[in-house]
């Protein structure tokens, strides 16, 4: 057995396009999933029972069903139900936005609930509405505490997006499959993309450690 990376290098542009698409889906799912997750968390924390229950159902549903099933559902079933055209790209973005929003909702919720009740009281007593308290006092503190869980979830999301190759979206995994098949060099191709994922995620988690340290240093203790 000998290693030959020449075919991989020759097809590097295809792999890089895949990487770009992977980052695109991950980035979009994050930027839609985070605000959606905040919305779900606020619904879940609402004093209105029905609203809270709807949110709870959505969160639990997307946390407990396998992401591959969700992806297939949005790609194959959803278009039949609503008679629309679904592209692999759209299905991927929709699935992972909603799926990650369910996880982000729980991160937001536990972050918000971890803030001492006295913070609500202190802001209420100077005349703030619930929304003002949330925006100015509670969330700025909660977000700080959420960052480690948020980073971990984002990494998880990046990994889960490899599933989109199954519906023929040209992400890094899909491109690797096609290069491996056309060049008959699965050993080198899959080794290289494993390395790419490793570098990407390892770099990201190192970054998150730096961020955490920064926060810990500037960390005015959150309990008074």
């Amino acid at each position, binding site marked *: 057995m000998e290693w030959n990376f020449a075919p991989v290098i020759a097809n590097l542009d295809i792999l890089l396009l895949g990487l770009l698409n992977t980052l695109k889906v991950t980035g979009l799912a994050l930027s839609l999933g985070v605000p959606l997750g905040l919305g779900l968390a606020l619904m879940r924390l609402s004093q209105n029972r029905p609203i809270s229950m709807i949110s709870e159902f959505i969160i639990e549903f997307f946390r407990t069903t396998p992401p591959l099933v969700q992806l297939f559902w949005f790609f194959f079933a959803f278009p039949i139900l609503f008679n629309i055209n679904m592209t692999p790209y759209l299905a991927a973005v929709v699935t992972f936005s909603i799926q990650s929003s369910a996880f982000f909702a729980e991160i937001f919720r536990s972050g918000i609930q971890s803030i001492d009740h006295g913070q609500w009281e202190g802001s209420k007593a100077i005349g703030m509405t619930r929304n003002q308290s949330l925006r100015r006092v509670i969330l700025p503190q909660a977000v700080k505490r959420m960052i480690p869980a948020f980073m971990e979830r984002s990494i998880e999301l990046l990994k889960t997006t490899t599933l989109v190759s199954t519906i023929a979206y040209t992400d890094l995994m899909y491109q690797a499959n096609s290069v491996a098949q056309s060049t008959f060099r699965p050993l080198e191709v899959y080794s290289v993309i494993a390395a790419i994922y490793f570098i990407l995620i390892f770099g990201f988690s190192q970054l998150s450690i730096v961020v955490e340290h920064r926060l810990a240093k500037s960390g005015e203790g959150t309990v*008074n």
Partner: protein
Amino acid sequence: MSELIRVENLHKSFGTLEVLKGIDLHVNSGETLVLLGSSGSGKSTLLRCINFMETLTSGRILLNGDAIGSETRGKITYKESDLCKLRTRIGMVFQHFNLFPHMTVLQNVMEGQLTVLGRDKAEAAEKSMIQLTRVGLADKAAEFPSRLSGGQKQRVAIARALAMDPDVMLFDEVTSALDPELVGEVLKTMRQLAEEGMTMICVTHELGFAYHVANRVLFLNEGTIHEEGDPQSVLRNPQTKRMKEFLEGHALFKLPE
């Protein structure tokens, strides 16, 4: 002296537990009222009802003669916006300070002015410095609360409430969480406020403060006002058995004269 706050037939229950069983009281402008009572007597709940940190079960509260809430067919409803406006006029200071740890001292005092009153930054900063000077902490403006002692935190909390220019201040056991040696500086600040004519309602266990600063003392027992009067007579010559026991409990380990 004009009447600033009137509480009429206030009842408050938590579930089946009735904590306040019909309270009537009034506070005149410039007066300092001290609420005494053992734990569970309802004094903190009463205080928290006055600025609607708790919703009333029944009864009503008037500020400057105007009843809070809107009454339709005998049922009083309270809008969040009305209550928020009310709370800007009734300042409150808590046992555990409840300062915002992610803001500096100055930002803490400015926050309500910016977010709630809509003052511009320069004005809010100026008013904040006036109040911080008043409580003797102007030099701590740039610090974060975590760098302050308990007594300093509590004085910042007082400045934060004062910066809203309230008509009346509520103090809810504000020295109970402090080291004994820090209690004095907070009481001193409160005394100074009282002398400057601020209207104050204080829940406290500091009998000395009640004796020297209060215009009137109310003793709460089991959700009702049990005894009431000027501090010299109530604290020196209690009329009821319950009040006597309460005072004896406090005097148990006093230094000999």
